Structures are given as structure tokens and as C-alpha cells.
């Protein structure tokens, strides 16, 4: 009972902070808005500790008895709000509370002086609570609820500076694009209810996640096969659509770069570490279902790999530091999806874990840089290495981790994905595995390139004027584009900001190896601890499909290859950008020599233009909706008004001809009427 309460507390602590901030602090204590931040940090600190506690319990295989609360009951099925704590959950709990805690501490400095300080922390609290809700949910509808609430928080936080039109538009776009995916998710849920009677016949609840796992186990291996065949495939694809929307997978990735309009810590927490990873989590959560469908797995793998590669190419040419990171995030999420698709379940979550650390750090670094320069445009940065050395080195560590340089965290997880993909699980066709590996390796090359390009443009060379120069170039009066309201000041960031970055830096360096030692049992941590731990949890829940559920052994060849490729990417960037930094702002981008390709990439493959310009605006909004609206105004109403016109003009047009005032016509009509009646009678 106590266990259960403690786990619930992880969720309720941030929620309570949200309620407190929204209903008490913001309306009544807004002068002491700092309370909001401290409140949330305190809550998250406790939540983090409880999460660690939960992790420990899970490791110890301690059953956390969960009671559930019936939220809604209809048609013989009840929607019970409950807890589902398995290894996946436990790790996600730690990641979410941990990163969130650090980001909140960072925000304390970053958001200092913003008039919406309390609102910011309220939203952050809501987000964290919702994210934890997703992670803890034992019921698919419960999960969907928090899934949407996470989308809401993301919307609110991207549009935090709602007076900026771009931020408002980006928030809307984020919500809308993810919602397209959610339609799939929702239809998947509807399909479950469609089958609810068959679930019930086996004593299962169609919405209870473990029951769904059971239902999806094929008859061939002794499962129930309630979900099977086309139904299972469509269910999986529906769930994946939801995941793809949240995780920015092609073709629903376009919202994520725009989402960088939000405050940078938001990008760090939501659009790098946690929420976007929720898509990966969702697929992982329903992995037992996906696994039963080779087609679904193939789709997940191909989309993931393709996204990883494609997003990386766009990352090459961006000038906005956060957009580079955003494309990088999409790319890395593609890695994770691909990993899930090829069956490297443990590796995918492991990568999620390491990625959370280094990508959050990168974003916080970007925030720090912005804090100093007042811009996100790397063309106006440069030379920051000297003024903010701590930031510089932390970003370098995170960057190298991203690029996959041994022995940083990113290396280990990426390597395990590649190995897993290379080995395959036999669930999907081998050609898919090969294609995935090829795409991921190509992406690794590009990752190295854009990472170093970003570091060089930002930190090396001469300082190129920052936000002031940018405004001047645009011909705007010095309207600070800066996030923070203290005004740019070229220098190191305050301690509140650096401290969390430092913690993340440490994590980026050591965590990868510590939690997942490849060769040896390291100081009591067993080999392949995290992947085995996760796979253990998974094994619990599914019937053997003849699939090897163990982490692949470390493959030196793969490690060598990936490292070489990463280094190649770094080297290429060094060659191209080393000299560029010495010159002025107007220097031509070296990549421009790629000509149309550069343009294609800069224009993001014209996908935004296609979606927003052609499909949504021109075809749908102007064409389709416009036509319907016109018809609605003119056709239906027109007919109605026509009747009105006829009625109104009956008098003037018809009546005045007959009702002339000449009384004898009246008499004539009387007689005519009588005669007409007679004739009528005689005719019938």
C-alpha cells in the first residue's frame, strides 16, 4: 500500500505544484513568483528520489501492488486508472524526473525576471505531471489522456511568449501535427473497444495494457490471438501513427523545428529529452503487440531509419543553433524508432536514456549561449569559447556524445542499436535490417558533421556581433530576440544554469558505460545491465516467439566502423568550417557549393511549403473549405432566401394584378370559382 502511494506521489507531486501555482501563487502571490520555481523544484526533487526508489524496487523484482480507480464505465468495460510499474516505466521515471529537475533549476536562472515566471513553472509542472502520467499509465485510455495533456503542455510552452506571432503559430502547428498522429492512436483505441466482447470472454479488459499484450499473443505460440491479422496490424499502425506524431517521425516531423520558438529549457526538457521520446516509449510500451506483426515492425524500422537520415541532412544546413539541435533530435528519435523496429528493444530505450542526457545538455548550452549573445543565429555568434569556457566544454562533451565518440554515453547506445540492427531478430526481413544499418551509419556521418559545424560556428573564430547585429542587419529597431529579460551580456551564465549543465555533462560522460557495461561487471553493475533489465521486463509479458531476447554482445567491428564514420563526419566539418570562422558574417556558407541540394535542404525538402502552402492552405483551406463555405452561404441559404423572395413578391407581382380594387372582378371570380367547381365535379 505504501509502495503504491509512493509511486502515485511521483505523479501527484508535480500535479499538486501545478494546482498550487495556478490557483494560489499566480493569482495571489505573483510578487513572489520565485516561490513557483522553488515549489516545483522541491516537488520534483522528492519525485526524483521516489523514482529512484521505484527503480530499486523494480530491480529487486518487488511487486508494486496497484489499486486502480474506476474513472468511467460503459458498455461492460471499465476504464481504470492504475499504475503499471515495470522496468521500462522505472527507467522512464528516473529520466523524466531527473531531467525535469535539472531543467527547472536551470530555468530558475534562465527565466529570471520574466513576467510570466509563475505561468512558466505552472506549465512545466503540468507537463511533468502529464509525462509521468503517460509513463505510469496502466490503461490505454489513461495513457491517451496524458498523451494529449502532454501535447497541451507542449502547446502552452511553445506558445509561452504568446505575444510573438511566430511562437503562437509554432505552438499551433505542433499541436495540430501531433494531433494528426493522435487520430491513429485514437482509432486504435476504438478498435480495441470493437473487440471488447472477445476480451471480456477471456476475462480481459480491452483497455488494460497488460491485457492487450496478452490478447496480442498469436495463437501459433499458444496465445489468445484476440488481436491478430489485419486488426493487429492496423492497431499497431494506429499506435505508431500517434508515436510518430509525438516523436517527430517522417512525415510528421515538421512541427519539431518550429517548436524551438519556446523557451530554451522547454526545448531541452520537452522537445529533446522527454516528450518527443514519449513516442518511442509508446511503441516500446506496446512492443509485445508490435512484435506480433512483422509488417508493423517493418514500418516502424523503415520510418525510423529514414527519419534518422533525412532529419540529419536538414540539420546540416540550419543556421539557427536550436534548429540544428531539433533536427538532430528528430534524427536521434529515428534511431530509437528504428531500433525498436528491428527488435533492439533494450538498445532503443538505452539510447533514449543517454540521448536525454546529452541532448538536454546541448539545449541548455544553447540557452546559455543565447543568454550571452541574445541570438540563436550561429552566424552572429563565434568566439564564445573564450568568454564562456564552461559552457563550451560542456557542449563539446555533449556534442561528442551525440556524434558517438567513445567513451561517451552516446557511443554505447548508438553502437548497441547498430549492432542490434545488424544482427537482427528474425522478426522482419533481413533486407530491412541491412537497409536500416546503412541508413543509420549514413546518419552517423552527418551527425558528426553538423555537430562540429555547430560547435565551430558558435564557439570558434571571432565574435560576430550577436543579437544587436542581427537586429541591425534586419533593419529592426533593437527589438531583443533574447529569451531572457536581463538583456544579453557577453559572459558566462549564472550558477543556477551552469550547475544542472554540469550534472548533465557528467551523466553524458559516464552514464552510458555505467548503466550498460559492455564487457565486465563494473563495480557491481552487471554486464549489459540496462538492456537486460528492460528485456527482462519485456520477457515477463510475452510468449516466446523464438526470438532472442538478449542484448547483443559488443561488436568491435561495428564499434570501429561507427567510430570511423563519426570521425569522418567531424573531420569533414573541420575541413570545411575551420577557415570560414575567421571571416565575417557575410561569408558564404561552404555548403552552398552543393547548389540546389543546399537549397533543397534549407527549404526542408519543401515539405513545409507542401504541407502548409499547397495542401493545407491552397487545396484544403482555399479550395475545399472555401467551396463548402461558399456553398453554405449561397446555396442552402440561397434556396431559403429565394423562397422568401417569392413569398414577399407574391403580393407586388401577382396580387396587385388581381386585387385591382375593381369590385366586379371580385364578383367575376366568385362566379368563375363556382363554375370551376362545377366543371371539376363533372370531370371527376
Amino acid at each position, binding site marked *: 500500500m505504501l509502495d503504491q502511494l509512493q509511486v502515485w506521489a511521483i505523479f501527484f507531486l508535480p500535479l499538486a505544484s501545478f494546482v498550487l501555482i495556478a490557483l494560489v501563487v499566480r493569482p495571489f502571490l505573483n510578487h513572489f513568483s520565485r516561490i513557483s520555481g522553488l515549489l516545483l523544484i522541491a516537488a520534483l526533487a522528492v519525485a526524483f528520489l521516489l523514482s529512484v526508489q521505484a527503480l530499486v524496487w523494480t530491480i529487486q523484482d518487488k511487486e508494486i501492488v496497484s489499486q486502480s480507480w474506476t474513472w468511467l464505465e460503459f458498455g461492460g468495460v471499465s476504464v481504470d486508472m492504475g499504475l503499471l510499474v515495470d522496468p521500462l516505466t522505472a527507467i522512464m521515471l528516473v529520466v523524466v524526473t531527473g531531467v525535469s529537475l535539472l531543467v527547472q533549476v536551470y530555468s530558475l536562472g534562465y527565466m529570471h525576471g520574466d513576467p510570466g515566471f509563475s505561468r512558466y513553472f505552472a506549465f512545466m509542472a503540468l507537463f511533468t505531471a502529464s509525462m509521468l502520467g503517460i509513463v505510469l499509465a496502466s490503461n490505454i485510455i489513461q495513457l491517451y489522456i496524458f498523451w494529449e495533456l502532454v501535447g497541451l503542455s507542449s502547446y502552452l510552452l511553445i506558445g509561452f511568449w504568446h505575444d510573438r506571432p511566430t511562437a503562437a503559430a509554432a505552438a499551433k502547428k505542433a499541436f495540430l501535427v501531433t494531433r494528426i498522429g493522435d487520430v491513429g492512436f485514437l482509432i486504435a483505441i476504438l478498435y480495441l473497444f470493437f473487440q471488447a466482447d472477445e476480451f471480456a470472454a477471456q476475462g480481459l479488459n480491452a483497455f488494460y495494457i497488460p491485457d492487450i499484450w496478452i490478447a496480442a499473443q498469436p495463437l501459433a505460440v499458444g496465445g489468445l490471438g484476440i488481436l491478430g491479422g489485419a486488426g493487429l496490424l492496423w492497431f499497431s499502425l494506429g499506435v505508431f501513427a500517434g508515436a510518430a506524431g509525438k516523436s517527430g517521425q517522417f512525415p510528421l516531423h515538421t512541427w519539431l523545428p518550429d517548436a524551438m520558438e519556446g523557451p530554451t529549457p522547454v526545448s531541452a526538457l520537452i522537445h529533446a529529452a522527454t516528450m518527443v521520446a514519449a513516442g518511442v516509449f509508446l511503441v516500446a510500451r506496446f512492443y509485445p503487440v508490435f512484435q506480433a506483426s512483422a509488417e508493423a515492425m517493418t514500418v516502424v524500422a523503415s520510418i525510423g531509419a529514414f527519419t534518422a537520415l533525412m532529419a540529419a541532412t536538414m540539420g546540416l544546413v540550419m543556421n539557427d543553433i536550436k534548429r540544428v539541435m531539433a533536427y538532430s533530435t528528430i534524427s536521434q528519435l529515428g534511431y530509437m524508432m528504428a531500433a525498436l523496429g528491428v527488435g533492439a528493444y533494450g538498445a532503443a530505450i538505452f539510447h533514449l536514456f543517454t540521448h536525454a542526457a546529452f541532448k538536454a545538455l546541448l539545449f541548455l548550452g544553447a540557452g546559455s549561449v543565447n543568454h550571452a549573445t541574445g541570438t540563436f543565429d550561429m552566424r552572429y555568434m563565434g568566439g564564445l569559447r573564450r568568454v564562456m569556457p564552461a559552457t563550451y566544454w560542456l557542449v563539446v562533451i555533449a556534442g561528442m556524445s551525440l556524434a558517438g565518440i567513445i567513451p561517451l554515453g552516446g557511443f554505447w547506445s548508438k553502437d548497441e542499436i547498430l549492432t542490434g540492427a545488424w544482427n537482427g531478430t528474425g522478426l522482419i526481413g533481413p533486407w530491412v535490417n541491412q537497409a536500416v544499418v546503412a541508413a543509420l551509419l549514413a546518419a552517423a556521418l552527418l551527425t558528426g558533421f553538423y555537430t562540429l559545424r555547430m560547435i565551430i560556428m558558435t564557439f570558434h573564430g571571432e565574435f560576430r556581433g550577436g543579437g544587436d547585429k542581427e537586429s541591425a542587419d534586419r533593419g529592426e529597431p533593437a527589438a531583443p530576440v533574447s529569451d531572457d529579460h536581463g538583456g544579453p551580456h557577453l559572459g558566462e551564465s549564472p550558477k543556477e544554469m551552469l550547475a544542472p549543465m554540469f550534472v548533465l555533462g557528467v551523466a553524458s560522460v559516464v552514464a552510458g558505460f555505467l548503466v550498460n557495461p559492455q564487457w565486465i561487471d563494473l563495480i557491481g553493475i552487471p554486464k549489459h545491465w540496462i538492456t537486460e533489465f528492460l528485456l527482462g521486463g519485456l520477457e515477463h509479458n510475452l510468449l516466446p516467439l523464438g526470438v532472442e531476447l538478449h542484448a547483443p554482445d559488443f561488436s568491435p567491428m561495428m564499434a570501429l566502423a561507427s567510430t570511423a564514420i563519426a570521425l569522418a563526419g567531424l573531420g569533414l566539418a573541420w575541413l570545411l568550417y575551420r577557415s570560414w570562422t575567421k571571416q565575417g558574417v557575410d561569408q558564404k556558407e561552404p555548403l552552398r557549393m552543393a547548389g540546389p541540394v543546399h537549397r533543397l535542404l534549407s527549404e526542408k525538402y519543401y515539405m513545409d511549403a507542401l504541407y502548409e502552402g499547397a495542401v493545407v492552405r491552397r487545396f484544403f483551406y482555399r479550395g475545399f473549405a472555401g467551396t463548402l463555405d461558399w456553398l453554405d452561404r449561397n446555396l442552402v441559404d440561397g434556396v431559403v432566401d429565394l423562397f422568401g423572395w417569392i413569398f*414577399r413578391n407574391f403580393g407586388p407581382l401577382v396580387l396587385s394584378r388581381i386585387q385591382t380594387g375593381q369590385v366586379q372582378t371580385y364578383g367575376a371570380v*366568385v362566379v368563375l370559382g363556382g363554375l370551376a367547381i362545377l366543371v371539376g365535379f363533372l370531370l371527376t
Partner: protein
Amino acid sequence: MSLHDLYVISPYAGMAAVAILIILLDLVVPRKGLLPVAAVAGLLAPLILSLVQLNDLVDGTDLLADVVPASVLVGTLSVDRFALFFNFLVLAATALVIISSTDYVKRMQQFRGEYYGLILFSATGMMLLAAATELITIYISLELTTLPLAALAALLMTARSTEAGMKFLIVGALSSAVMLYGMALVFGFTGSTTLEGIAASVAAPGQQNVPFGSYAVLVGLVLILVGFGFKISSVPFQMWVPDVYEGAPTPVVAFLSVASKAAAFAILLRVLFTGFFDVSLEWAGLIAILAAASMTVGNLAAIGQSNIKRLLGYSTIAQAGYILVGVAAGITGAASGLDLPEYADIGPNSVLFYLASYTAANLTVFIAVIAVGNHLGSDRIDDYAGLVRRSPFLAGALTLGLVALIGVPPTSLFIAKLYIFTAAVDSGLAWLAILGVINSVVSAYYYAKIIRIMFLQPAAYQEAIPIPATSGLALSLSGVALLWIGIAPGYLLKMAEVASVALAG
């Protein structure tokens, strides 16, 4: 004539006597304000007499039945509940019209006695009409109803008023000539002028393949219907209505639109149901078509009218159409595939109920129009702009009346329409019911237009419109009546039901 005969005709004689007394009073009393008081007080006489008769009727169907020796009145008159129902209706309408006229009549320096007298004469005719069962009596009563109204229409002596009187007289005389020819033919064929005798003759098998059994009855009945059609203002005999309504003094129009119409429907029912019941399957179709035409033409024409009296004229044509639905629905047989007609469960009683409800509603409207017109000196709808500011009471009452005419609950005509359309559906005339309902919707357009103008348009003048106590009283009475019928229609329904039993004999 025996004493009993005198008792039987006493309400009618009483009414005529009141009329004569008022005219005499006019000659001797200098204060003309007493006249309406005397007239309304005088109405108590026929009222009480009618009540006494009603009391006597508890077990019988007709005051003249079972009288020994047989009364000389037998055949010409049937003082039954049906007739008494209309006595009360006509008396109520007459009283309200007289009360609401008092202010209006002040315009006339002279002839106030004649005015009230003629109204009372006409009312005498109406009451007789409801009781008449013989063609000659019917004809005389009809003329007694019509001729004073023609004089009244012209009584303002303005060009418009005399034009209205003239039109009413000419169309009226023309249709009564046509009707007379019809009566002659019917008389000639059946050899009788009593409805009873006619019914007996009509029931006999006639010529093959000739509607109504013979050309004489066919042509005769159609020509008679022309005359009645003129009185009830049914299409296509309706064309005089808007002109006369516009030109005649408003209280007279009010009287014309309710009492005269009610009496005409009474005789229509009496003739058709008592005299021509055996051929009813043939005339029911005709009545249904007339109903459909009246509703539709009346409503379509009313849209776009700018004079409220004219609009109400068209509206009354449409209302006649609704009532005709009830007449047509009185007969079943077509629906049940029978060769012989049968009395419908709901038939004439729906007509009676509708007439009473309509009287309350239309009088409410007209009394308000009289009061407004008196002050404004205009009947243009546009001049009603902002009425609600100038006289909330009048605007409210007028709205109530108009809403009732649309047929919106909880007003009298809602139940009445419901009842009459119920009758139609029950008699297999669902199409007519649907058409009627659609027509009600169309009518909402122009009734609501008046409401809209009263409530929405800014008033050209701001000064309040005083409401004379008499108009206030009359409005309250009719308004309460229409609400009362709408909310608790049980009693009136019962009365109508009992009254219509007399028709079936």
C-alpha cells in the same frame, strides 16, 4: 304561436328588441356614452335566455322536440346545443366589439345609436343563422347578418368607407343571388326547403354517374356554397375581404371577421351535415380543396402587406382555410374505404372549438388594432414601429394575439389547430394537415413581422399611447380567454363536443 314558441325564439327576439331599444334610446338620451353600456347590459337578456334554454336542454336535443301540439317553428328552427354554442360565441364577440368600439365611435358625431343598433341586428341574424334549419330562414338570417354589416362598413361616410360598404354589398348581393338560384334548384329537386326534407330526398338513389345524384342538387349545392363561401371568405369567394377590411371601420371589421364568420360556419356545418350528409363523401373533397386553397392563398397574399387591416384580411382568409379543414374532416369513409359516410370522431366539434379560439385570438388582435389605430389615425404596419415603447400593454396584447394566430402554445389556437389537424389526420386527410401545418409556418413570417416592427423598430414619436379603460377591459377579457383556452381547453372542448352532437341528429 304558442307561449313555448315565444320562449324558443326569445333570445333572438330579445336581441332584436335590444337593438330597437338602443336606437330608441339614442333618440331620447343626450349622453351618448350610455349607449354602449346599455347595449352591453342589454346583451344580458339574450344571454340569460340562452342560459335558461341551455339548462332546459339537458336531456333533449332540441327545444322543439316532443312539444305537444307540434310547434309551428318545427322545421325552420332547431334550438339545440349547437345553436346555443353559437349564441354564446356571438354574444361574447358582440359584447367585446361593443366595448372596444366605444372609443372609436366617438369619432362619429351622429349615428351612434344606429351603429350599436346595426351591430345588434346583425348579431340577431347570426344567432338565427346558427339555429336555422330551413332554406328560407337561412336566407333571411344570412341577409339579416349581411345587410347591417354593409351599412356599418359604409358608416364612416368617407370615400374609403363607402367604397368598402359598396363592395361588400355588391359582392354580397351577387353571391346571395347565386346562392338563391342554388336554393331554388335544390328546392325544386327535393320539393322541400327544410334540411330534413332535403336530406330525405338526397338520400334516395339518384341518377347514375351524376355527382350528388342529380344535376339539380349538384348545381344547387355548389351555388349555395358560393353564397356561404362569400360569408366565410373562402377562396375563391374571398376577394372582397382585404378591400372591405381595409376600408370599413375597424370594430366592424373585427365583428365581421369573428362573429359573422362563426355564424357562416355554423350554417355551413348545419346545411352540409344535416341536409347533405348522405352525399358528404362528394362534398368533403371539395371542401378539402377549398381549405387548401384558402390557407395557401391567404397566407401567401398576407406576406408583403403594409396595412395591418388588409393583412388581417388575408390572414382571416387563411384562418377560414384552417377551419374548413375541420369541416372536411368531419366525415370519414374515404379513409376507411366505406361506401357510406360516417361521422368522424372529431369533426364539427373541432370547427366549433377552433371558432371559439379564433374569436378570442382575432378579437385580441383587433381590439389592440382599434386602440392603436384610434390614436395613430393610421393602420399602416410601419406606424406600429416602437409600439412597445409607447404602449407596452397594447404591444403585449397584440403580440399575444398574433402569436396565437400563428398557433404557438400556450394559446388557444395552438390547441385548436392541433385539434383540427388531428381531425384531418384521423379522417385520412393527412395531406391537408401537413399543408395546414406548413401554412402555419408561412404565416409565422408575416405575423412575426408585425411583432418585429412593434418591438424592434424605433418609434417615430415617443409619446405614450393612452389606453381607454374600455379597450383595456376588452383586451384583458379576450387575452385571458385566449390564454385560458390554450392552457385549460378541457371545458371548451367538452362544450364543442356536446354541441356538435346535435348536428348528427
